[in-house]
């Protein structure tokens, strides 16, 4: 039985709604600025979005490269934002993080990143993003639940070249699930593939598109031919 609460990210569920981003920005410590990164993988060819929160590495690269020793981990393994009195705003952490998480907040002159809603999780509540996320792409709950009920399964070890990174936050993956095409054209009838888009709308009719197709259908002879196809 493992009922400790953990963080799980599942991009396959994400609908790109930005509730997480908007809710993160609501925190009074960062005043309208979100610590979550949400990007389209490539909007021209699809609607897949990926939410990124801090992965809270066991041995955080950002802390290792910090010359001012400003990035601390608490006893639960949560990697905190840079401590204001120490941070020299050098951006080493921003460049070094394998997941691209920390951001330099020029208005605060400080590296700020997701600290897993320290104010909430430290008193047993869920982080804000994982509370509001309508799709379950960001989920905070027991590992048992996830392993039992989710199609995707958690992974928290990542390979970046020679570096192996283990994280507190889990990424959900579904090895057996094939990626679908992102292009509507791939879902159209075969003959349509090379066709002019305008001809596609008109479906072979000389002028008024489907009214013509329809009249043709009402012609018993044409109908018979089609049924025999």
């Amino acid at each position, binding site marked *: 039985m493992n009922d400790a609460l953990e963080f799980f990210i599942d991009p396959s*569920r*994400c*609908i*790109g*709604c*930005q*509730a997480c*981003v*908007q809710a993160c920005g*609501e925190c*009074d410590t960062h*005043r309208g600025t979100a610590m979550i*990164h*949400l*990007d*389209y*993988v*490539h*909007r*021209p*060819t*699809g*609607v897949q*979005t*990926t939410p*990124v929160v801090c992965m809270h590495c066991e041995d955080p690269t950002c802390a290792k490269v910090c010359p001012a020793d400003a990035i601390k981990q608490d006893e639960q393994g949560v990697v905190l934002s840079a401590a204001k009195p120490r941070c020299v705003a050098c951006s080493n952490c921003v460049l070094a993080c394998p997941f*691209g998480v920390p951001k330099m907040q020029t208005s605060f002159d400080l590296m700020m990143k997701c600290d897993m809603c320290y104010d909430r999780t430290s008193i047993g509540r869920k982080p*804000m993003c994982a*509370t*509001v996320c*309508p*799709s379950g792409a960001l989920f905070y709950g027991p590992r048992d639940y996830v392993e039992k*009920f*989710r*199609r995707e399964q958690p992974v928290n070890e990542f390979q970046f070249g020679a570096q192996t990174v283990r994280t507190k936050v889990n990424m959900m993956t579904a090895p057996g*699930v094939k990626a*679908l095409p992102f*292009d*509507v*054209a791939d*879902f*159209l*009838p075969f003959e*349509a593939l090379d066709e002019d*888009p*305008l001809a*596609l*709308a008109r*479906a072979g009719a000389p*002028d*008024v*598109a*489907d*009214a013509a197709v*329809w009249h043709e*259908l009402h012609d018993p002879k044409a*109908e018979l031919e*089609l*049924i025999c*196809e």
Partner: protein
Amino acid sequence: MATLTQSDSCYTEQFGPTLSFAPAGGWGSRQPDKLVKTHCCFCGVQCGIQLKVSDNKVVGFEPWEEFPVNQGKLCPKGVKRYLQNDHPDRLLTPLVRTDSGFRAATWDEALSKTVAAIKSIQGKFGKDAFAFLGGASMTNEKAYLNGKFARLALQTANIDYNGRLCMVSAGAANRMAFGVDRAANPWSDIPLAKALLITGANIAECFPILTDHVWRARDHGAKIIVIDPRITPIARTADLFLPVRPGRDSALANGILHVMIERGWIDEAFIAAHTHDFDKVRALVAKYTPALTERITGVPAASIVKAAEIWGPAETSMLLHARGIEHHTKGVENVLTYINLVLATGRIGKPGCGYGTITGQGNGQGGREHGQRCNQLPGGRDINKPEHREFIAKFWGVPEPELPKQGLTACEIMDAIERGEIKGLLSISFNPLVSIPDASRTRAALEKLEFLGCIDFFLSETARHADVVLAGSLQEEDEGTVTTGEGRCVRLRNSVSPPGDARVDWQIICDLAARLGNAAAFNYARPKEIFDELAAASKGGPIDYSGMSYERLEQNFGIFWPCPAPEHPGTPRLFEGGEFHHPDGRAKFHAFDYRPPAEDVDAQFPLFFTSGRVVSQYLSGTQTRRIGALVEQYPEPLCEMHPRLAAKLGVKDRDLVRVSTRRGEITVPAQVVTSIRPDTVFVPYHWPGRKSANLLTNRALDPISKIPEFKVCACKVEKVADAPAQPARQFPARSQRAASTR
């Protein structure tokens, strides 16, 4: 004369939309006096939410995890909804039009002017020359009150509401098929379904909370079929995606049923015992072979067969649809042909088995139940049925012949204004200038009115044309109930009181009624009294709330109607045991042959135009275009088009394109994406003026539901200019970093 008296920019300067970014009192100082458990106002899901209130201002939110439907989840609109409160654009006093815009007025002046105009117009041109338009974002209490006000105080037949632009096709189809208008199942049935057919419903952007329900079904092994001209975020990982050609939905449903019958995936015993007219449908769909259906719908025959293979033999199944199949001149027919797929399998009225239209407006369900429609009396009663008229006339204490007859629907009211038959209009919570198709005609109609009165909290684009604006209330400034898309009546709590001289809407209506000589029938101290009256009025009607009370709603996280007695637990799932609500207890199949949309593509206008929503905006945007963070998320309408079409037109991403139809044109940036059919373009409709998608859409109406055909018309697209060198900030503002870290 309801013409504008100053330039649009002058109105904007004075009344907005102004973008509000930060909470009242600023960040960091938000120690709430109280947390109010209430609901989000921005869609029919009605997520539970707690509003943080400090010093009579809503300053933030906290998730409400105990509310069972959303369990703390929210979409971005819910997260930022609190920013509509304490807004710089908020109307604080009544306004009266002047030669240059508006001036503040006292309530006495504003109400007297309104009543004088009503009396003079009705005196000269008859009672029906003054119309009333209500809204489906308002509480059940106000929906009831609007209907009662129009019938008793205005005595006009012409009352309707903006739900006429929303889901009335589903409503009419529900009554025709099942004898009652409500989603048949609670949403908790979705995760229990083994097959989900989602057609014309952009769940991820319009009802985001239901996404989790769909994914949980998938976790349990459900197969998901999505039918849409666009690959929406829900379609992205569906098991089967059918890219239907706009306006061909009924043919597709007929084609799927054809295969199911051929393969024997129908429940003959259920059909014989619980339904009528299957034979007519069987005969009709015989000709809808996959090959033929492919030609009409643009969906490959193999995909049509595959859909039948998933849906036909499934153990449990749910059909979910929304505006995508309803916003058509055959909207009712589309819905009925899809309902045939449910009835043919007999999978309804059981856990994980059934059907639901997903209502889009805040009170899309309740707003259509309590009598603010031209053909309806409280309790879902029919204004044309003598026994229903008799009941309500007696309940209101008036002779039956004095109850007005059925009047015109929302778009028809606009047409009648255009023809000069309706001279005066009182509109509440409705922004027809942005939301009714063929906006140029809407503007011309508004300009013809002898009197326009608007009750609203912000000055909407329509209200700019008003003679009198009565400063009403936001959702959080009043209390009452709404009925969610699953038929659950829930309680809205009062968080703050209206600011300045603004008043709660129901008081304004009651004040007007009193000045029209109806004080006795409109004498309420609190919304609770209106609720108790509407519940009593619904007793024994098709939509029965008579067992509900505020206390019960609060104790139970809402109650599903019908709830005919104080000890009745409510009815989350309809039609259990195959008991339908037609007098003989049977459901009805409907055989509708496919027919083309009112305006199909041709050589001159060779592309399909379709419209819809984005996740960060709500309806005509009167509220959400004033919330900074939501505007930044999707700042302006874009014209989605496929790269193959873009190549043909010589258009690159973000180039400015002119989209034109027989009714008008708009110029917007292109968004070149593979997620849309190559023969179709899409523009969301939340914006006014020259960016209004409804300048293009076709005001052709469904003959039964009178819904306009928002979802398909013919257009042409031309490039106007290259993308600006410094492209407008767009989402995502950052690099494509996510791709490289996968």
